[in-house]
C-alpha cells in the first residue's frame, strides 16, 4: 500500500488537496443554497482527510489515519446539526436559500 503511494510524490497530494480545499472554501463563500454549503464544507473536510492519510502513509505513522476516522465522525455530527436547523428554518420560511436569513443585520 505504502509502496504504491510512493510512486506519486507527496507534492502532488499537497497540490491536489489544496485545490480541493480551495474549491470547498469558494463554494461556502459564493453558494446561496444551504445544502450546497454543507456539501462544500464536506468537500473541505474530505480534502483534509486525504491530506492526513497521505502524510500518514509517507511518514509511516498511524496517528494520521486514526485522526481521519475521528474527523469523519465529527463532520457527520456537524452536518446532522446543520441539517436539523435548516429543517427548522424551512418550516417557517419555506426556503433553504440563505438570503432569507436577513433578520439580523448590523
Amino acid at each position, binding site marked *: 500500500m505504502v509502496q504504491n503511494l510512493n510512486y506519486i510524490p507527496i507534492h502532488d497530494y499537497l497540490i491536489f488537496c489544496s485545490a480541493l480545499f480551495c474549491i470547498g472554501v469558494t463554494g461556502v463563500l459564493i453558494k446561496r443554497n444551504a445544502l450546497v454549503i454543507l456539501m462544500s464544507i464536506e468537500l473541505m*473536510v474530505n480534502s483534509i482527510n486525504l491530506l492526513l492519510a*497521505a502524510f500518514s502513509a509517507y511518514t509511516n505513522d498511524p496517528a494520521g489515519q486514526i485522526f481521519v476516522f475521528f474527523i469523519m465522525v465529527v463532520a457527520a455530527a456537524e452536518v446532522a446539526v446543520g441539517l436539523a436547523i435548516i429543517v427548522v428554518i424551512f418550516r417557517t420560511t419555506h426556503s433553504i436559500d440563505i438570503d432569507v436569513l436577513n433578520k439580523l443585520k448590523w
Partner: protein
Amino acid sequence: MLVMRHELLLVIITVILLLVEIFLPKDQKHKIILPAILLFTIVTILGFLPGITGELFGGMYVSTALTMTMKNILNIGTLIVFIQSVSWLKKEENKEKISEFYLLLLSTLIGMDYMISSGDFMMFYLGLELATIPIATLAAFERYREKSAEAGVKLIFTSALSSGILLYGISMIYGTTGSVYFTDVKAAFEATPLQILAFIFFFAGMAFKIAIVPFHLWIADVYEGAPINVTSYLSVISKGAAVFILMIILYTVFAKIAIIWRDVLYVTSIITMTVGNLFAIRQRNIKRFLAFSSIAQAGFILLGLIGQSQLGMTTVIYFVLIYIFSNLAAFGVAGIIANVTGKETIDDYDGFYRTNPLLSLTMMLALFSLAGIPPVAGFFGKFFLFAAAAQKGFYILVFIAVLNTIISLYYYLLVIKAMFLNTSDQPIGYFRSDNYTRIGLLLCVAGILVIGFASPVYEFILNLSYGLY
C-alpha cells in the same frame, strides 16, 4: 483523587440528569432545575480540592495545576449561567425543553475541559468540536423565533468553516513534523515556510472561535439572535476556554516561532480593539452592544498574550476570570429585563434607576468593571495586562490600548447615562426579580468586588503560571 476528575464528575452528573429527564413526566420537567443546580454546585466545589497532576493515555491528556485552575474558573462561570437562566427556562414556551438546556450546556463544558487538558491535536480537535456543536443547537433553542434559528444556522456554518481551516493547519503541522503530540511537534518544529503557513491557518481557525477581527462578523448576529442566557454563556465561557487553549498552544507548541506570532498578535490586537470599540458606539440593541464590547475585550486579551512571560500568562487568566464575572453581571441584568418586559434596546433603559435602583447599580458596577474603572476588579485586570505588555517594551501597543479604553469608557457610560440621567415618559416599571436571578447577580457582584480588593487570587494564579519556555 483521580487525574481526570473534572471531566468524570461532569460526565457523571450529565448521565444522572439524563436519567432523571427520562423518568420525569412531561408536565413536571421544571423539577429538574433544583437538582441540576445543586449537583453542579457540588461538582464546582469538588473541583477545588487538591488534585493529582499527570498525563493519561500516553500524553493525550495532560493535567497540571494550571489547567485545573482554568477548569475551576469555567465551572464557576457556568454555575452562574445555570442560576441566571432559571427565570428564562421557567417561561411557558421553554417548559418542555428545560433538561435539554442543562444537558447540552454540560456537554459543551465537558468538551472545553478536554480541550484545555489536551496533549495532542486530536484530543484538542475533538474537545473543540464537542464544545461547539451543542452550542449551535442552544443558539437555535427558541426555534419558533426566526432570529433564534437564524443565529443557530449562522453559528454552525461559521464554526464548521473555521474548524475546516483549523484542521487544514493541523494536517500540515502533522505532515511536516510527523506527529500530532504537542511535545513531539514542539521538538520537531523548524519554522519552515510550510509550517508558518500551517500556523497561520491554525491561528485563523482559532480567531474565528475567539472572534478576533477580521473573523468577527458572525458574532454580533449570533449574539443578538440567540436567547440571552445562551449568549452570555457563549460570550464568556466559550471565549474563555478558547483563549486558554490558544495561550497554552502558543506558549508551548509554537514557542519556537514566538517572533512570528508576536507580530500576528500585535496587528490583530490593535485592529480588534479599535473595530470592536468603534462599532460598539453605534449599537442600540444591548445584546449587539455587548457583542462588540466582547470583541474589544478579546483585543485586550491578545495584549496580554503578546507579553509571553509568566506575568502575561497570569494576567490573561486573571483577566478572563474578571471578564466572566463582569460580563455575566451585565448579561444577567439585560436578561432579566428582556425576560420580564421583552425590551432589548438601550433607549428602553431611560429612567431605569428610578424604578429599579438595585439592578441599575449592578449594571453600573458591571460596566465599570468592563471599562476598567478603579476600584472594581476590571481596573486591575486591565492594569496588569498593560503592565505585561509594557514590561516587554510594547509601548506603542499599550498607548493604543489606553486610547481604546477611553473610547470604551464613552459607550459604557452611554448606557449608564440612559439609566441614571435620562428621563422617560414610559420607563420600565418596577418588578421583583426571582430569587435565582438575585443569587446569580449577587455572586457576580461579589466576584467583581472581592477580586478587586483581594490580591490572593492574583498571587495564586501567578504561582501556577509558567510563561513561555
